[in-house]
């Protein structure tokens, strides 16, 4: 069990956004998280990644308890997430966005800049090579020195995946990576994910998605949330036939 969530609770005002959610994400798998709008998916991501404090329950990652830690501490443990609203640094170039994502950079420690200058330069060279190969994978070679702010929405989503690759986390948490991306690009994204991420040994992905095609295409397991509670868990085909799941989506459709 790479990630283990037990009875996660989150309350906003009087609303129980998460009402005792428990789930596991196993290593080397792709686990999907789906549910109607407002069911608590992003809230759960925020709790797990430390961007919001939880009001109850425990979360363990790689055997360590993480639910009271700061978001950067959790990220350093190997859990890195993307955001629904892309957070690319728009005033930095694509390459800079990638370079900053590399973990454990000696050059980021102010006091090591001079005494450790050789190590810093060496790491920079290595990271530049790594970033260049990622650029090639993404098809972004020509965009290397382009400001991230000039990229299209779909390109920025790719960039956020690129940052992830650079960071090489133990667990990728992707929050709606295909939202707002045009269908042809989605195909490309999926192929990219399968080839470059999922096929690599030891990669674990936890992904929120609304697009069921994406879910059935890459997920080993799917968890369904509704109104802050887990209502179903299983493989994509099982979920698609699950009566409760269908009912909850239908009920939402009826309401609107």
């Amino acid at each position: 069990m790479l990630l283990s969530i037990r009875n996660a609770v989150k309350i906003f005002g009087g609303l129980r956004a998460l009402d005792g959610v428990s789930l596991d994400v196993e290593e080397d798998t792709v686990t999907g998280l789906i549910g109607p709008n407002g069911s608590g998916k992003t809230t759960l991501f925020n709790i797990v990644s430390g961007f919001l404090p939880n009001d109850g329950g425990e979360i363990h990652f790689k055997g360590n308890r993480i639910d009271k830690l700061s978001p950067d501490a959790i990220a350093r443990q190997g859990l890195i997430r993307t955001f629904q609203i892309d957070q690319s640094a728009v005033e930095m170039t694509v390459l800079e966005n990638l370079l900053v994502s590399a973990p454990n950079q000696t050059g980021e420690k102010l006091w090591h800049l001079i005494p450790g200058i050789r190590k810093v330069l060496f790491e920079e060279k290595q990271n530049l090579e790594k970033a260049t190969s990622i650029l090639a994978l993404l098809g972004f070679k020509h965009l290397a020195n382009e400001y991230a702010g000039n990229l299209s929405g779909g390109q920025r989503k790719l960039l956020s995946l690129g940052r992830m690759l650079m960071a090489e986390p133990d667990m990728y948490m992707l929050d709606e990576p295909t939202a707002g991306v045009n269908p042809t690009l989605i195909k490309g994204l999926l192929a990219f994910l399968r080839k470059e991420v999922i096929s690599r040994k030891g990669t674990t992905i936890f992904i929120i998605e609304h697009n069921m095609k994406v879910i059935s295409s890459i997920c080993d397991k799917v968890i369904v949330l509704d109104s802050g509670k887990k209502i179903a868990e299983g493989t994509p085909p099982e979920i698609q036939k699950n009566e409760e799941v269908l009912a909850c989506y239908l009920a939402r459709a009826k309401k609107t």
Partner: protein
Amino acid sequence: MQILSFINYWVTITAIYSIFALSLNFQYGHGGLINFGQVFFLCFGAYTVAITAQLGVNFAVSIILAMAVSGFVGFLISYTARNMGGTYWGIATLAVGEIVRIFFLNENWAAGGANGISFDVKIPYFEIVTLALAALSFGFTRAVMASPFGRVIKTIREGDNLPLSLGKDVFSFKKKTMAIGGVIGGLAGALFAYQKQFINPEDFMPIETFIVWAMVVVGGKGRDMGTLGGAIIIQIFYVGTRFAKDFLPIDSNMLAALRMIVIGLLIMFVMMYRSKGFFPEKSRLYKVS
């Protein structure tokens, strides 16, 4: 000959202001941290020099001490705005700036109170030293920003979420940003003290913060070259208008007020239309094979 000595004086003053502006640009232009009390770095730097000079300390040591003290102050200030956004930094730093000034005004034992301190130590070849230090400050900020450390600083400028999600200890970086700003600002303060040989609280009014803001804003946040440009432009404006009262029917109070109106409008104008300044930032370009 008078012209020469005046130019000499102007160049020195501009060099000192440039260092001061670089310190603010580092915090705001590169780091995105608003400091509305920047003058307190000047204050600490200058008073450290004045006090140690009175004790007969060698000027090199005084300057280093001044930089260390100011750097430490910058580090401490960060705690008042830990995880806060722009507005809180602005308010907190404005408050601290005023507290510092009132403290130095009242505390006679620390710094001569309202009478200030005068001292007798001079730096040999002062003008050249100042220019060299200005160049050094410029080179230093450029070097820091070209490093991976600087890269993280730039990332934080746009928001905490991305760097946090990548495992960067954002608050630690912010503290260091303020400390570096403090070190450079302290250097400016130290040189300011040596230039005047006499300092009192009146030298550290908020107006100094406003002038340096105009320099950074006009020059374009982030681009240190631009900051230098901004410093020169504002200084030319100041000197250029110095003699205006000889030609216009206004007194010195009116002159001072009019100048500040221009400064204020300039800041507004740049923020409204050219918030990247007149010398916008250029990112580092890499060669990709």
